[in-house]
């Protein structure tokens, strides 16, 4: 299994995705995507609704096929589901009938990994997100933020080289969201997986990412990729620092130039 | 994993429970060795009319003939006859009228013994309602039901006795509702089998009713009989003979001592009837048994059948009359 410290690199070459709708029309979700993500890099993808960012993530995961182009994950071409990928969706999708620990152990069971070592890892992960006492509870007894943390632990327990997150904090309230950002950063700094993080929030992207990919829609294209030079670890205070604000402003102006945000 | 295991465990527990209830349910008692097993399916629920067969069973007459007989209740003559035709039952016991209709419709069944040459039909009314002759029906409310014999016969009855049917209020209702309606005086007159319902209803109401005996007034329908599927009879003639012989013995004993017959029957009833009612039912049954001198009990005549079939044709209960030997045979009585 790939060591957690070094994530995998991702390469996308001329990737496009076309859907046929029920009425027979063709919809170009993504066109001409070229992107390289380095091992251990945290890349955020920001863009308006319908710009295909979720589709992009699904293509990288291997769960849906590309129409044209090629994707490689860790030097191997993507043909079908990528087992190195841990996925976190916006909905936590925990299994109601399993305990918290049971949920975290799900990938271990399905992939038939060694139970002993991964049980320890699962417990460690839960402890690191502050859910050690909730191991035997059922998801219905947890709050939204807690559930999403469990989902993240579930993604991490299998030592993925790659973490794919599709607006994981979108359903949470603003305060919990801020906390989760810091928690995620802390976990990532420890394991240094490659992360592809999709979000609507420019602030969130800048806080978490090494690079921010700006996308436009219809068809989804990469408009720009901006590097975030802020030092780590970034904390709660970082949001008020000038360098942070400048970075966010730069990206926001980008969206305004693209016509996605406007003053009028 | 855990919830699924739990469901499986619960499923197994349920199966065990089922097995237990199956063990607890009543099973048929007689398990004779080397006896030929067969069932006589009555057309209705247990009543005093069936006592003679219970006598034969209780006194071992069937067993003596090498038969392991089970006497069982049925759910209406039509259904029993259909079961005979389909081969799921071997013998049926009930009104010959129903068999006549079945044969006319082409069902391969036959009547092999006739235990009442005349079904003891009557019409009853509360004491305050005069009912001495058929004309008294005029101006009264009479209940009729589907498949009820008197209701089928109402037109010939009226014709023979000069009753103006237009003056009789005929009310259609379900068979099981009639008794209640009668007892609550919603209808004035009701037809009954004198050997069965009359004692029951009188006991319930606590009064002696006015009775008009239909047979006294020109309507005579063949009464209870033993039917058999034609195919079964052809393949097992000896069995039929044995059954009828033993049954006849039961009848003789019942005729000789009706009270004993009633006691015997009571033993075999899952839901007992009131003893005095049962006594009356058995009495009325044995009195009307078809036991012509010099002939076996249940002996049938061409004349009797012809009259009956003519009557049925007249009322429209059957459309055509087949040759008589399609309906009945006495060959198993010899």
């Amino acid at each position, binding site marked *: 299994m790939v060591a957690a410290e070094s994530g995998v690199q991702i390469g996308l070459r001329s990737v496009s995705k076309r859907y046929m709708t029920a009425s027979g029309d063709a919809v170009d979700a993504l066109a001409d995507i070229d992107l390289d993500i380095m091992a251990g890099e945290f890349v955020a993808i920001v863009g308006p609704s319908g710009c295909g960012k979720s589709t992009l993530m*699904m293509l990288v*995961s291997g*769960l849906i096929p590309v129409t044209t182009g090629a994707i490689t994950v860790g030097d191997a071409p993507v043909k079908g*589901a*990528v*087992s190195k*990928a841990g*996925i976190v*969706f916006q*909905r936590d*999708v925990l*299994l*109601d*009938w399993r305990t918290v620990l049971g949920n975290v152990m*799900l990938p271990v*069971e*399905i*992939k038939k990994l060694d139970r002993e070592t991964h049980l320890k890892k699962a417990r460690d992960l839960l402890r690191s997100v502050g859910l050690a006492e909730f191991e035997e509870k*059922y998801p*219905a007894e947890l709050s939204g933020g807690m559930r999403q943390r469990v989902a993240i632990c579930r993604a991490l327990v299998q030592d993925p080289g790659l973490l794919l997150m599709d607006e994981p904090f979108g359903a949470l309230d603003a305060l919990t969201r801020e906390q989760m950002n810091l928690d995620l950063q802390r976990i990532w700094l420890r394991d240094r997986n490659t992360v592809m993080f999709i979000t609507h929030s420019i602030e969130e992207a800048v806080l978490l990412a090494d690079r921010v990919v700006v996308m436009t829609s219809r068809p989804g294209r990469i408009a720009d990729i901006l590097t975030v030079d802020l030092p780590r670890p970034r904390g709660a205070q970082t949001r008020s620092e000038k360098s942070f604000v400048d970075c966010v402003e730069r990206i926001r102006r980008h969206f305004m130039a693209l016509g996605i945000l406007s003053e009028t | *994993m855990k*919830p*699924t295991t*739990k*469901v499986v465990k*619960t*499923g197994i527990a*349920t*199966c065990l*429970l*089922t097995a237990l*209830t*199956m063990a*607890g*349910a*009543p099973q048929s008692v007689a398990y004779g060795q080397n006896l030929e097993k067969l069932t006589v399916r009555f057309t*209705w*629920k*247990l*009543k005093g009319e069936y006592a003679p067969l219970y006598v034969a069973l209780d006194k071992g007459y069937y067993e003596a003939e090498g038969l392991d007989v089970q006497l*069982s*209740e*049925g*759910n209406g003559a039509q*259904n029993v006859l*259909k*079961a005979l035709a*389909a081969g*799921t*039952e071997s013998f049926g016991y009930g009104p010959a009228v129903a068999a006549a209709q079945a044969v006319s419709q082409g069902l391969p069944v036959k009547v092999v013994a006739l235990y009442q040459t005349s079904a003891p039909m009557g019409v009853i009314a509360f004491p305050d309602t005069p009912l001495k002759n058929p004309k008294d029906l005029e101006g009264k409310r009479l209940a009729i039901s589907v498949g009820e014999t008197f209701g089928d016969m109402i037109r010939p009855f009226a014709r023979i006795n000069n009753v103006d049917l237009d003056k009789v209020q005929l009310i259609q209702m379900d068979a*099981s509702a009639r*008794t*209640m309606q009668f*007892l*609550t005086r919603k209808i004035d007159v009701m037809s009954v089998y004198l050997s069965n319902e009359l004692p*029951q*209803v009188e006991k*319930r109401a606590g009064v002696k009713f006015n009775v008009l005996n239909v047979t006294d007034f020109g309507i005579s329908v063949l009464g209870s009989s033993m039917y058999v599927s034609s195919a079964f009879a052809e393949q097992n003639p000896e069995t039929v003979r044995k059954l009828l012989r033993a049954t006849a013995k039961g009848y003789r004993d019942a005729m000789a001592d009706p009270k004993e017959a009633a006691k015997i029957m009571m033993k075999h009833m899952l*839901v007992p*009837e009131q003893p005095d009612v049962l006594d009356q039912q058995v009495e009325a049954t044995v009195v009307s048994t078809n036991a012509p001198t010099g002939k076996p009990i249940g002996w049938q005549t061409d004349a009797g059948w012809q009259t009956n079939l003519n009557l049925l044709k007249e009322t429209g209960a059957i459309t055509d009359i087949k040759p008589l030997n399609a309906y009945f045979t006495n060959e198993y009585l010899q």
Partner: protein
Amino acid sequence: MAMAAAPAKVGRFRTWLVNSGPVLGIFIVIFLLWELCCRLFDVPDFILPSPLEIIDKMTTSWWLLLVNGLVTAQEIVLGFGMSVAIGIPLAVLVVYSRTFERVAFPFMVSLQTIPKVALAPILVMWLGYGILPKVMVAFLISFFPIVIAAVVGMRSAEKEMIYLVQSMGASELTTFLKIRLPRALPSIFGGLKIGMGQAVVGATVGEFIAAEHGLGYLQLISQVRLDTALLFAAVVVLSLLGVLLFNMVAWAERLALPWNRLRTEMIE
């Protein structure tokens, strides 16, 4: 939570009383009114027996009611068991095969719409007078809700859940066993509860058509004997049986779905 045992027991009794009290109260009121009406208006017992007469009949005929109750219970449980044993696999086929769904569904729906009262005499003719026709009627009447509930339940897994396990490399079978089936259980149990009620009706209808034992049979014969108290007694026992069986399903649900505890209903 240090509480002495006695106060805890009293507390639970009190809670039970508060919950069930109003229902019991209503029953008692109906009881008394009924008894009063019967006496005041001198209603003959073959038309409407008074509650006391019914209770008296129940106590004197308790063995009869018990034995016949077991017979009917057996028919119900067997018919219901058949529905589950056939219905769930059928549902799996419907979910996993479009063709099967297109072929099987019209059959199931038309079977459901045929009144079982009409079907029962035909079944008796084919299957004889034993236990089989009653079990068949109970089966036919209870299997549709179970199939539908299972299909709905199995289809209810969110697509993200399926994506997740697929990304973990789960086979179709694993996805079914670990995701679709457990996900379907609450819905299935809902269907089971409905199906159980239907099976009770089915067995009784079967007995009305042709039986020599059972609570439905008792109802028939009590009409023939004009023993209305027995009729009512049989009805009471039948409804108690129905409640008992329903509760058994609810209890099984509580066992199988401990995480669903707050949502299961039980008739106390």
